[in-house]
């Protein structure tokens, strides 16, 4: 089977500043890749570029999603093709109901696939089921998207959206940040039940802790816009112990050599 995502030597910049400086990464169906790295190293930028944020200019390189060029697809097209980004900072949208918005999103995806709109009863059933998965309070359904949600509620809501939309590629940008251990377990469980042979995840995190619950197939370390090391799940433990400075030093040495 071919790769779900193939990134080749990707460079991206914003307002003339290069942030991603040649990233290559291949993600096969069913795999979970963790991306770790210091603040400002470009993790969110990578996730946003993959989701289609137009602010970032791709200056060189290639991104293939299911063998097709991703770079000229609109964000909504990517979403309909099965890419989902759980935001590091989910956006509050006053006046737009969480559930109805999700229904419109689901229907946009279904329409794209040539399926008919979900009927109200089936949608309600689906929502109930997925809500249980992330232990989300029902009141959050009726409220406007993310408005006044606590940090943890916002993160759960992202996973809830993902569970309803059932993407092929889930990009989770620090979905664990700010969660207590119980919430973290819930979020991880939400991801784990979605794990299957034809669905892949990129999990961006600062903490090895999350990776105890969402066990990755690969761990990559992003420093200053480059993947400086890749390994198995044990790499996360090593980072937890030693921090990033030894890698940053290596990169520095490399750059000046």
């Amino acid at each position, binding site marked *: 089977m071919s790769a779900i995502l193939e990134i080749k030597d990707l460079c991206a910049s914003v307002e003339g500043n290069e942030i991603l400086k040649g990233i290559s990464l291949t993600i096969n169906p069913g795999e979970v890749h963790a991306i770790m790295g210091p603040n400002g190293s470009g993790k969110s930028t990578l996730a946003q570029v993959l*989701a289609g944020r137009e602010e970032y200019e791709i200056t060189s390189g290639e991104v293939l999603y299911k063998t097709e060029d991703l770079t000229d697809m609109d964000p*909504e097209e990517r979403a309909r093709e099965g890419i989902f980004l759980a935001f590091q900072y989910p956006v509050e949208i006053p*006046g737009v*109901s969480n559930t109805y*918005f999700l229904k419109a*999103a689901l229907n*946009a995806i279904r329409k794209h696939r040539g399926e008919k709109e979900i009927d109200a009863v089936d949608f309600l059933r689906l929502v109930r089921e997925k809500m249980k998965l992330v232990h989300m309070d029902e009141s959050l359904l009726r409220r406007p998207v993310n408005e006044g949600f606590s940090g943890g509620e916002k993160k759960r809501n992202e996973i809830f*959206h993902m569970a309803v939309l059932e993407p092929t590629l889930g990009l989770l940008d620090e979905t664990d940040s700010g969660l207590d251990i119980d919430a973290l377990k819930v979020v991880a469980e939400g991801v784990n039940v979605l794990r299957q042979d034809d669905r892949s995840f990129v999990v961006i995190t600062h903490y090895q802790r999350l990776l105890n619950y969402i066990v990755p197939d690969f761990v990559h370390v992003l420093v200053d816009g480059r993947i400086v090391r890749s390994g198995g799940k044990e790499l996360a433990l090593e980072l937890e112990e030693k921090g990033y400075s030894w890698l940053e030093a290596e990169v520095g040495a490399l750059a000046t050599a």
Partner: protein
Amino acid sequence: MQATAETSSFLTSAREASAQLPDPTGGPLAALRQRGFERFEALGFPTTRMEDWRSTSVAPLAQSSFVAAPRDTKLAPEDIAPHTYAGTCSLVFVDGVFSTELSSQPDVPEGVFAGTLQDALEQRPAEVMKHLGQYARLDEQAFVALGTSHLQDGFCFLIPKGVVVEQALHVLFVSATPGVAAYPRLLIVAGENSQATLVESYVALHEGEGFNGPISEFALDANAVVDHYKIQRENLSTFHIATQQVYQGRSSTLRSHSISIGGRLVRNDANGVLDAEGISCTLNGLYLVDGDQHVDNHMRVDHAKPNCYSHELYKGILDGGGRSVFNGLIHVHPDAQKTDAVQSNRNLLLSSNSLASSNPQLEIFADDVRCTHGSTIGQLDEDAIFYLRSRGIGDAAARSLLTYAFASDIIERIKIDSVREEMEEFLFHRLPHGEIVRQAV
């Protein structure tokens, strides 16, 4: 300022109207009209040199000429059916003139008067003349003077002490003939501890020019509660210049919502005088402009006594080359301690050619008050758009959704279901991909 040649067609009309219209009160009404004419003659049309009219030029109106209402325009019920609201009683005015055939009989408790101003003047002249013209300031305001010189047609709502009118009344002003000037007058007198709900709407059945210059006076006695909705939506060639003057008694509550969807030039002056303690006054609004429309909302709330609450939230959506002006003044008099006043104006610019001007002001002469004001002029939040798109919603639909959400903040405050739903429908139709918006809110 003296009347100029520009004002002449209006001046002639004002002179004739004030001299010739019948007076069922045998004197006082004619005298009021005469005063209106004299003040309009003295004041002339406002110019952009005047502070209150700096951003709105009425020159195009002053240069137009209009005729008086034909008084015999006949419309079929199906002409007006799309403009009535389920669950309300419609009182219909065609080109400013009351139509018995098109109107329903209000279902109101005994003692309530809800009908035309003429009938009210015939049946209860003393009561009407006690209030009519007592609040709107014809001495200073040219359009109040002009409207008063033509004072004849309109709606009168007298609610006696302690009476609750459950049925919402809808006064519908239909412009049926192009080129007509109408000066509807509204008088709402809510007695002590009474309650009522009024919808006031303006529509046009043609695309031609027209002028509506309504003047409404609201007098609320102690503990009265009045809900008021004004919906202005004639056509793109209409001039609409309105004055709403509110006078409130102790612990009374007015909740007024004004929605302006358009005209060529629209100006709303809403003024509230809070002249007793414990008053609550809400003046909210929404305006949508596109093309070369211009909407100006001017508000002034006078806090004359302590412990009153006033709230103003005006939101505007500007597209095309649309222009809007918001000018809100909260004036807190020295006696008005513990005033609680909140004023805010938020503008959403959808086009780089649109222009919003916003000027909220506070004048505070008391020292123990809580007053806040603020204004914003901005575009749609790109982060929000990206968030919506990243979930599969298309770009245009995402923009419509956020625009709708911006407006719904005001729309959802409308308590009459049929009025609120009609406004929602209007937006679904007006916004691109409205069917997605309909599903997502």
